[in-house]
């Protein structure tokens, strides 16, 4: 029951901060709203019993990626950011009915009754070991190929980011 109350608290915080991400005009404030949403989502992970994922969310998203965004924002000049309008209002007004339609469709799907089959094999293993151990066992046995592919993807993206981010002497205009 306490888990449920924590879920509702973190869910309301994350929705509030998500609205802030869309609405706020200053990009620094947008980063701060995103930070709040990510911390609330990691709280949801902790309340759902996924401790490893919640701590990884805190370490990777909240620390690394948010700092990365702030670093990029400092590379962009401020005068231009304040001069320009941050929202494309016409596109926003024309897209809003479709977002509402998406919500209505999700509501209909939930109301029509979605159910998943119960399977309690993992639960007994989770009780004996911890969450992180079970994830490690699964990750290095069943999902080992995907894990290796993910490491290759990270290597490729690292090389690409280094190539893209290096200083160029010439500019094109």
């Amino acid at each position, binding site marked *: 029951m306490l888990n449920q109350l924590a879920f509702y608290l973190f869910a309301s915080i994350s929705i509030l901060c998500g609205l802030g991400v869309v609405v706020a005009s200053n990009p620094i404030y947008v980063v701060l709203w995103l930070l709040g949403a990510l911390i609330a989502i990691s709280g949801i992970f902790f309340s759902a019993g996924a401790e490893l994922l919640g701590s990884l969310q805190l370490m990777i998203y909240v620390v690394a990626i948010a700092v990365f965004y702030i670093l990029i924002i400092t590379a962009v000049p401020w005068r231009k950011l304040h001069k320009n309008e941050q*929202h494309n209002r016409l596109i926003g007004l024309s897209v809003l009915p479709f977002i509402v339609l998406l919500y209505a469709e999700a509501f209909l799907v939930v109301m029509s009754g979605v159910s998943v089959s119960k399977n309690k094999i993992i639960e007994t293993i989770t009780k004996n070991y911890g969450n992180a151990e079970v994830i490690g066992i699964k990750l290095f046995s069943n999902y080992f190929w995907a894990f290796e592919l993910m490491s290759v993807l990270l290597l490729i993206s690292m090389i690409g980011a280094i190539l893209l981010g290096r200083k160029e002497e010439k500019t094109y205009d």
Partner: protein
Amino acid sequence: MIEMLLTPHVEQYFILAFILLGIGLFGMMVRKNLITILMSLELALNSVNIAFVGIDKVNHLIDGQIFALFTIALAASEAAVGLGIILSLFRLRKAENVNEIIDLKG
């Protein structure tokens, strides 16, 4: 009704994930600045993670958390490459909004 609200079920995670996905999608379309578009994309990716964890919680499985782990790694690499592209676009073209990028051949 109160009893239903106080026991964990998979629909609450799905509803939260759908709401956050819609917010992120709307942000991706309504924003003009490239950096804030990427931030809305991060919000949408996180909503998928919530759905995975919710399925795990109710169904007593562990596979969804592994896929959420992969999603986090994917989001990290996507942020690195995307922000590198934005930085080089700004450095070469002095462009940071999506409507300023009008030609492809440099």
